[in-house]
């Protein structure tokens, strides 16, 4: 057979069989290629083929095979690197690649924060009124337990670091729906609102407040939010300029994982500092859903926080200042916790992109409480 035919045959063998053969012969059987922790989902198991599963088997097998392809992670990482280096895009459609290695989150089904950045998803008056009423109802329900109610709004990263968003994304109006909502709530209700955006916009000139490769604020950003929140509760934290901070490198993040750019997007950092002389320990925990901390602060006060992932980095600043502190994720929260624990303070923390949740924010049968 001519040489050129052999070469093409080899090419065909490589693209159809090559990866499978290399995997079979050279990768150990017990090699764990699972990347569940990066993809944040459970990969499909191999389906069984029997008379009951015959009709669904092809679809299930395709899903399983796609999740367990030979060299899957390696090939995906190569693709992700090419996308990022050549085209400045992310392998994930939910991640926007900004300037200087900054990544931003923009999943349509999860708040669609891109629309907020563009200023085109403003709330109508009746929507803001509905949210206000829902929060007031919650406050009333908590009042029965003499619980002080504070609402903390965590800004989206692009609301603070808009200068790192790519220039091709057009800002249609400078109106921000959360700004408008906060103004509405402050003017029309007596709710205690914490919205650290303005302070963050000032402080960012001097300090970095959000991770560049993660959706969340860093420890200092969390500290700013914690300081303002605790001030509402009558607890004062030191000013940022008075903190004794160390800088530590931080080259990870949820957006880096989603974009498969681990080790590619670098030059991020965080701060480490200690605020309180008190210590705390976790006495009960259910992953990230429920955290019950106790500290050696003997003020007899209990704080409860209904939160999302932004509050995780606030725990270090809040827990030492209360005898008991309970942090419950939105997805696991039930008003029964309030009934059982009767906290002195209740903080509702929610990130900007999740504000639509407040439209349906009610306690089921709250009159019963």
């Amino acid at each position, binding site marked *: 057979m*001519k040489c050129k035919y052999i070469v*093409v045959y080899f090419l065909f063998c490589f*693209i159809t069989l090559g*990866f*499978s053969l290399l995997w079979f012969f050279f990768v150990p059987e017990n090699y764990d290629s699972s990347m569940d922790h990066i993809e944040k989902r459970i990969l499909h198991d191999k389906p069984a083929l029997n008379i009951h599963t015959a009709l669904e088997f092809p679809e299930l097998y395709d899903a399983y*095979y796609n999740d367990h*392809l030979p060299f*899957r992670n390696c090939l*995906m990482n190569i693709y992700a690197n090419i996308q990022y280096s050549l085209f400045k895009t992310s392998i994930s459609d939910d991640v926007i690649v900004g300037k200087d290695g900054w990544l931003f989150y923009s999943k349509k089904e999860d708040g669609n924060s891109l629309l907020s950045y563009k200023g085109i998803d403003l709330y109508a008056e009746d929507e803001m009124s509905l949210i206000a009423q829902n929060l007031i109802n919650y406050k009333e329900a908590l009042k029965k337990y003499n619980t002080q109610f504070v609402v903390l709004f965590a800004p989206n990263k692009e609301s603070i670091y808009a200068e790192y968003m790519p220039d091709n994304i057009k800002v249609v109006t400078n109106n921000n729906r959360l700004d408008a909502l906060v103004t509405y709530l402050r003017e029309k209700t007596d709710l205690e609102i914490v919205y650290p955006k303005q302070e963050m916009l000032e402080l960012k000139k001097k300090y970095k407040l959000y991770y560049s490769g993660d959706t969340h604020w860093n420890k200092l950003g969390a500290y700013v939010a914690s300081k303002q929140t605790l001030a509402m509760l009558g607890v004062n934290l030191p000013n940022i300029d008075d903190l004794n901070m160390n800088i530590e490198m931080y080259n990870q993040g949820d957006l880096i994982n989603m974009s498969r750019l681990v080790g590619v997007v670098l030059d991020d950092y965080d701060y480490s500092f200690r605020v309180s002389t008190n210590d705390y320990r976790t006495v009960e925990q259910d992953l990230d859903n429920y955290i019950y901390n106790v500290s050696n602060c003997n003020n007899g006060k209990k704080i409860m926080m209904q939160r999302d992932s932004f509050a995780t980095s606030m725990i270090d600043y809040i827990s030492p200042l209360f005898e008991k502190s309970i942090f419950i994720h939105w997805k696991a929260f039930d008003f029964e916790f309030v009934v059982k624990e009767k906290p002195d303070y209740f903080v509702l923390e929610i990130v900007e992109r999740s504000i639509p949740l407040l439209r349906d924010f009610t306690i089921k049968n709250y009159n019963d409480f």
Partner: protein
Amino acid sequence: MLFSSMTFLWLFLPFVFFGYRLLNYKYRNAFLLLTSLLFYAWGEPKYIILMLLSIVINYCFGMLIEKKEKHKRLTMVMCVIFNIIILGYFKYYNLIVKSVNALLGVKLIETKYIALPVGISFYTFQILSYVIDVYRNETPAQTNLLQLALYISFFPQLIAGPIVKYHDINEQINNRVVTAYDTTLGIRRFIIGLGKKVLIANCMAKVVDHIFVIPGNELSTILAWTGAVCYTLQIYYDFSGYSDMAIGLGKMFGFKFRENFNYPYISVSIQDFWRKWHISLSSWFKEYLYIPLGGSKKGKTRTYINLVIVFFCTGLWHGANYTFIIWGLYHGIFMLLERAFLGELLLRNRYRMVNRLYVVVVVCIGWVLFRCETIGEALDYIATMFSIKQPGIWNVLEVVNVQSIAMLLMGILGCGIIQRFKIFKYGICNIILREFAQTVLLFFLAFCCIISLVSGVYNPFIYFRF
């Protein structure tokens, strides 16, 4: 199963390719038939029975048509009606019901959900090609059920064409040789087709899907044209890429399918366009509908009527929606105009670029009709294309990123422009070096396709309505 899926590329294809070559010649057709049925059943586990029944019934019809000389025509007509009814039920039931209800002004019949079996339009037309060829004595009826089944269900062209006419392939079913030359050509063709589909078409699809959901009042003129141009490229590279893969796969097993696309976007008239776009479909309609209706041999008026009928059917074949019918008739109107006077003007025009621009604009607008869900939506979109609407909420560069621009440029150049320059033929004189460069490029292309596919790139095939 899709050609651009990992299950096909890494499991099915190597199994069939090497299994075919290891088998004794007399078992190869049976092997191809079994693997083709597996291929179809993988994507349509419920409707494989429908296809098998259709094959058996049409096999019987074929034998009857040949044997029953007296009632030959009646048998053929019954067979055609039977196949049209099957296709009509699964594909056009709801369209017919909606039309009847609209005509009567009352909801007389309820629509219902009917899953469309993948490839039914393609294999139905192949079956019709068979029975009509038998009726016309162009070919004897196939006495071997397995061979007829192979013709109808052969996996390279089963779900997205090209539509292979029976008289083009019947000899090859019994008598074909697999050569190393054809196999390597087939492999190359397959990889190029895969590249067209995965790298260009899928990239364009992302842009198109973003633009076509933008509400009319937020859509600017420039975005509308961007969407139309990207869809023009998407549909071409998607479909021609799939045809390239089908033709390449056919070659790997010794079959020679006719070409389905011949750089239609550099056509010089709409008539020329339809000689180069989806050639298997247009030639099917020409052979089995246009010519039996009289073609152009029964006077001008009758010719125009025949053209309208053919293009009505062409539009209808593409989908069960009024937009497809309007699209077909839209092309039919231009065919009539060119027949009447426009064709002469185009022929006499020295500046071929003007002709090509005319074709591109007409076709581009037609694709908007094709893409939109409703006629109203399509008309609004086209109106935006021809008005001066300032950029609204969406910036073009927000929707079309660097990668999309690169694929857009490659797509435009690959429509026939770059092929005219024959870079490899004239750029590299040394044959060995030329072959080497082509193979290296093919390898690079294949690797890019694999990493793109593995990364789960958005990958629906738009013609799977059919």
